[in-house]
């Protein structure tokens, strides 16, 4: 029980990721599939960002210099424990840009599919394609 409560955030990330996977697989509408893909990607980015969090008053990774030394840092006074780990932030910044690019491509494909078939429902598109190949 302690294992479940102490790591509550990880359980919520897993639930969110599975909701996105359900949306991608089980929803029939193509726009709803795109929404599921966005949920899936943001949950993974959220998990990676949460690995950079430190307890005990760590702040944003901007090194604060000494005001008496015109902002210079006295060697040996800056410790890694005072600041959050910036590596996951930078990696996930790239992932957000990739996420928006895939979203834009998906939306453009939705518009092309609607122009061709007149609907966004997956089963109706399959039905139209069957009729086209039969005739």
């Amino acid at each position: 029980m302690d294992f479940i409560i102490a790591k509550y955030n990880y359980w919520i990330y897993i639930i969110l990721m599975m909701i996105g996977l359900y949306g991608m697989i089980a929803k029939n509408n193509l726009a709803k599939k795109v929404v599921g893909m966005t949920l899936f990607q943001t949950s993974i980015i959220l998990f990676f960002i949460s690995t950079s969090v430190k307890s005990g008053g760590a702040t944003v990774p901007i090194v604060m210099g000494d005001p008496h030394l015109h902002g210079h840092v006295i060697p040996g006074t800056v410790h890694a424990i005072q600041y959050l780990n910036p590596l996951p932030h930078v990696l996930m910044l790239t992932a957000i840009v990739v996420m928006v690019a895939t979203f834009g491509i998906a939306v453009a494909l939705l518009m092309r599919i609607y122009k061709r078939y007149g609907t966004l429902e997956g089963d109706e598109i399959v039905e139209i394609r069957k009729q086209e190949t039969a005739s």
Partner: protein
Amino acid sequence: MIWQLDLILLLLVLITGIAALSVRDLLSSAIILGAYSFLMCLLWTEMGAVDVAFTEATVGAGVSTVFFVAAIYHTTRRTKD
């Protein structure tokens, strides 16, 4: 990081995520997805990742919502599930 705020924001993110997938109108789905993205941005600010948070606020909650609404305007709002 305040764990009460963290838990409230996580539950709100969960609710908006389920709502964005389950509403039967694509325009409502797009707007709820924008709210989801902005709540995600608040969550990242609270975790100390400010650079990721403002990228998400501009690009995720802003540009993605505009793209999605424009696409729905050009196609259809109708959905069966």
